[in-house]
């Protein structure tokens, strides 16, 4: 049921923008809300990161996924259990670029006859990788709307993405991969009863929202063929702070922009902020050197020692009276 609500909500948002833009809300959906969304996104993400930076890390808590560095003749797993800052940095970068923690995904199932099986499940990893990279390519391609002249890199990405030259406008591989991966990630949550049970609105809504963004973009490019010269005028107006809505923009463009605005606004307050958080996860970015360096908790009060000799001195008479032997004799 939860997935229905999320899909419905995205549908309603799309309809609001579609009819709102036609009812004279073009400046609202094209200028005011994008600016607001961008401000909320940047300030929100910065606030989250500053909040994380300010929290104390009294002790190193890396997840250890391999042999710790110990004796010289035991080979350490320098990436899975890094003992140096460089190793930890490499581990974070590999996590960011290749999603190694998802690669370890396992699946446990109760089979017929009461047999319980564990097996590797790479589908989540593969779909997540496909989704994130195609989304990145789509994101980078959109730079052509915001910059004049368009950087050569963007043109190269476009050329590579449209390598197969299918149809005109040329079909981008990233569009197909993006929608397919999103579809799989949504289906994955629905197909397994246990996964469905633990899936929340916060899991379905981002998927539905990004699916909405992707599908509205696909519609604009391949089917309704929006006037992109006007769209670029709008985008350039926004980034040069001389915003104006040119005439003749397809209402579907405002649906696309509005859904992206919602995504940006939702970003800092949801699980999507893992974009920043992945760099700051203490289980990944700290070196496992707890046994090499002494980590003193910064807020510990100074330890006031009380040695046995002092204690014996304090209770000297009582100890003597009880006939207990003293060290200091």
């Amino acid at each position, binding site marked *: 049921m939860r997935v229905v609500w999320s899909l419905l909500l995205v549908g309603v948002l799309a309809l609001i923008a579609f009819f709102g833009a036609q009812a004279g809300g073009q400046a609202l959906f094209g200028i005011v809300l994008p600016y607001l969304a961008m401000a909320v996104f940047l300030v929100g993400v910065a606030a989250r990161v500053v909040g994380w930076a300010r929290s104390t890390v009294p002790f190193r808590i890396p997840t250890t996924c391999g042999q710790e560095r110990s004796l010289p003749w035991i080979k350490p797993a320098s990436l899975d259990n890094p003992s140096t800052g460089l190793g930890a940095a490499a581990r974070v970068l590999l996590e960011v670029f290749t999603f190694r923690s998802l690669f370890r995904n396992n699946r446990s199932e109760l089979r017929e006859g009461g047999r319980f099986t564990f097996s590797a499940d790479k589908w989540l990893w593969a779909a997540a990788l496909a989704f994130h990279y195609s989304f990145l390519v789509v994101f980078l391609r959109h730079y052509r709307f915001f*910059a004049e002249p368009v950087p050569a890199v963007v*043109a190269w990405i476009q050329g590579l993405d449209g390598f197969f030259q299918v149809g005109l406008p040329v079909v981008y591989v990233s569009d197909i991969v993006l929608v397919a991966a999103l579809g799989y990630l949504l289906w994955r949550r629905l197909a397994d009863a246990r996964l469905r049970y633990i899936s929340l609105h916060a899991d379905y809504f981002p998927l539905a929202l990004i699916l909405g963004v992707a599908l509205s973009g696909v519609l604009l490019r391949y089917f309704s063929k929006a006037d992109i010269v006007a769209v670029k005028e709008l985008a350039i107006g926004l980034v040069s702070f001389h915003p104006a809505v040119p005439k003749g923009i397809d209402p579907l463009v405002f649906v696309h922009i509005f859904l992206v605005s919602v995504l940006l606004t939702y970003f800092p307050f949801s699980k999507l902020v893992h974009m920043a958080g992945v760099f700051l996860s203490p289980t990944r970015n700290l070196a496992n050197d707890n046994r090499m360096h002494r980590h003193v908790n910064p807020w510990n009060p100074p330890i006031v020692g009380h040695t046995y000799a002092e204690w014996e001195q304090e209770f000297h008479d009582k100890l003597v009276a009880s006939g207990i032997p003293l060290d200091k004799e």
Partner: protein
Amino acid sequence: MRDRAWIFIGLAAFLALALAPVWQSALHGAARKPEPKIVTKAKQCVEPTAEMRRNHMELLNAWRDTVVRRGQRTYLAADGKTVTMSLSGTCMSCHPNKKEFCDACHNYLAVSPYCWECHIEPKEKS
């Protein structure tokens, strides 16, 4: 503790990158809207202007396929006129100014159609 500096460097880099289009527009100044120059006296293209603006790529793609794969060269327009399907012969007779017509919008939006991988580009003074 000691890592806080790194976090703020990263955050600053992220914010600077996220606002890249703003810096670029500040550096290069406001971009002007492209105005494709039409040099012909004809009132209308093969199809109505709005239709051409939106779907010229599909039309050209369909023409390419019909000519190259089926050997047909006659196109029946929506208003009943017949046109010879030919980029150099028909399109370029009214629009010989590739640089001022085609490229005006295509360069603005980094669109690079592959017409000229087979066709010979018209010689123009830039």
